[in-house]
């Protein structure tokens, strides 16, 4: 319980730090960077709930990112919904879609699960491309996303949009944290480590995986909504396989074993992209080299590496204390 309150406190602190950004007069470019990072951060963090905590490597996670984006964008463009209404509708659509896709996919393991999610993603992507009259096809949702005021909040104002995105982002991260630290989260780890053992202990593995799949899809959907609000449109490549690949890159870059690893990966990837794009068009080459260094050199994400070193040092210290105590006890016995 204490851990839960501590996490919530840290989330509040994180939100406070984010809200301080416009207060201290940070340039709009930094706010844009953070908003962009928050959208992709949610995609990566939610994917890590599947990959890092449940052992389900999904190659099709971006379909839920796109589902949230398109459902929200289309609802707003219809003019029949307020922003909270469209938000809820987008969540309901994403959750329903995840429930259907997940019910089919989570029964499979490893490579079969990965490829089936990829297949569903490409199906969804091709529906977006093909249904031109509804989705705008490869041109995406054109004409901007209307942002009518609600509860006195005006998302057409960039600062208010930033605050809205920050709150939504922190709430999602807090939800993810609560999930992974709850008994449900530990069940996910058990399934990841030994699915048969979990089943023998009476856990309905399929249902737990499905619940995890839906939660993670909904968080990715929120990421899609934030990006839609940021770019004022939704585009098919939100749901293309390369976007799922990018999210996996982010997890690789940051690390999958530490809770905030994918978020750090997102920041690294976006920074690398934004810096290299200012100087060269060979962004992919730079990213490729970084990935090679990580895979061949570190063999894990930097945050994972730091966490491991910290743990090793802690254990070494504990061992030293035990050795010293044993030595003292031995000396006492000898005396």
């Amino acid at each position, binding site marked *: 319980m204490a851990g839960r309150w501590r996490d919530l406190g840290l989330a509040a602190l*994180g939100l406070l*730090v984010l809200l301080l950004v416009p207060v201290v007069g940070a340039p709009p470019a930094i706010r844009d960077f953070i908003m962009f990072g928050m959208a992709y951060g949610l995609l990566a963090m939610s994917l890590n709930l599947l990959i890092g905590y449940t052992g389900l490597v999904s190659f099709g996670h971006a379909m839920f990112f796109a589902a949230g984006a398109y459902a929200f964008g289309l609802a707003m463009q219809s003019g029949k919904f307020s922003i909270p209404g469209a938000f809820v509708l987008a969540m309901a659509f994403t959750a329903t879609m995840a429930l259907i896709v997940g019910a089919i996919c989570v029964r499979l393991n490893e490579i079969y699960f990965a490829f089936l999610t990829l297949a569903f993603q490409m199906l969804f992507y091709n529906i977006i491309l093909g249904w031109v009259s509804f989705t705008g096809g490869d*041109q995406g949702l054109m004409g901007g996303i209307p942002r009518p005021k609600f509860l006195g909040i005006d998302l057409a104002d960039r600062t208010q949009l930033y605050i809205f995105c920050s709150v939504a982002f922190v709430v999602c991260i807090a939800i993810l944290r609560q999930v992974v630290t709850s008994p449900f989260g530990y069940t996910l780890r058990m399934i990841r480590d030994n699915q048969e053992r979990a089943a023998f202990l009476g856990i309905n593995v399929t249902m737990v995986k499905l619940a995890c799949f839906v939660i993670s899809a909904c968080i990715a959907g929120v990421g899609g909504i934030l990006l839609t609000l940021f770019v004022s*449109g939704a585009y098919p490549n939100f749901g293309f396989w390369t976007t799922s690949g990018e999210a996996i890159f982010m997890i690789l870059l940051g690390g999958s074993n530490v809770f*905030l690893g994918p978020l750090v990966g997102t920041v690294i990837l976006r920074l690398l992209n*934004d810096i290299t*794009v*200012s100087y060269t068009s060979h962004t992919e080459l730079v990213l490729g080299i970084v990935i090679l260094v990580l895979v061949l050199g570190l063999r894990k994400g930097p945050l994972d590496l730091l966490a491991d070193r*910290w743990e090793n040092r802690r254990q070494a210290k504990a061992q030293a204390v035990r050795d010293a105590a044993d030595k003292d006890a031995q000396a006492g016995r000898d005396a």
Partner: protein
Amino acid sequence: MTSTESRRASRRQVLKGAGALAAAGVIGAPAISKAQTGTIKIGVPTILSGRVAILGQTSVGGLKVVFDKFNAAGGINGRKIEMVVRDSKGAPQEAAKVTRDLINNDKCEIILDAEASSAAFAVQEVIREIGVLCLHSNSETSSLTADPKLHVPTAFRTARQGIHDAIGGGDYAAKIAKAKGLKKWATCSPDYAYGRSNTAEFMEYAKHFDGNIQVVEESWPKLFQPDYTEVVTKLLNAKADAMYSALWGGDLVAFIDQANLYGLFDKQASFMVNLGDYGVVDQVKQFPQGVYSGGRYNRTVPATKENEEWYQNYVKTQKHKPTNWSWENAVAAEFVVEALKKTNGDTNGKKMAEAIKGMTLKSQFGTKGTVTMRAEDNTLVDYIIGYGVSLSKEPYVSDFQASAWEPIFELEKQWKKKQGYIS
């Protein structure tokens, strides 16, 4: 356990803080250093990597030729133009982010959007919000400026427009069809919005001008498809009298190379809107002769001294041949320069837009030696549209016939009514 967790939490805070500081440093530093140079900064989001990198390279070339000349003449009020070019990789969300960064971080006062269509719509939304002057120099999708719902007062288009090409091309194709008795047509265009809408509009106007034309086969290869064997076989089996294709760039090069193996171009009349561009001409192994080619950029169209000089100067300074995108961007740059002269160097979006709206420029790319930025929908008109016949060697296009603009205006108005854009 609790103490370890709390230590981890504080480490995360430190990492987050360090990350935020690093981000602030990396993103903020260029803004501070570049804001003091006193140049007029023009941001250019475009595609510089991947299979269509030639779009970005030759677009920037077109801009540079004009801006270098402007700067060499001393600029305006001592202020010279500085281009800040960024690669969006053609992704709309990246284009939106890059455009915002160019304005907010690099302090660009004008945006020259050299993006392909899908990203151009994303840039349009950024401009709607920020209100700086923007010229879309590559997007040919008609709705960008034709649809009043998408209208942004400070955004203009200097690229050719799909509907203009379709009407001009349809008229030309109908004349050839009547003369040669080409009744059965096949189409082969890329399977995405541009390919489908371009082909539908071309065939609609070809039928409008010649009621005997009928489409007997449609082939929609995927964008960036490497193998066209199946498509070529399908076209041969259709035994059509003529074929229309909106393939472009590397796809068109691959298609021609593979179609040549089957002698496709000897068996039917072919109309290809994107054929006669140097980006394609220089890449195809065996450039086909006798294909009806849409006007993109060619040093002999128009066959004037000014155009030849422009071509020579471009090749000399940019070290590559210009493309269709080069002239479209050169025109965009000319509009910016003329507008700056009118506003006496004031880059305010509204003032620049007022200056450009309805402006007519002297230009070798215009049918009457001028091009005009039509005030009613902020789009370029009077540029050279037409078709010629391909040659396998220089100048690659012969018998070029420019389309008259009056019928294009008339049919464009009808098309706009049909789309619900005007009443």
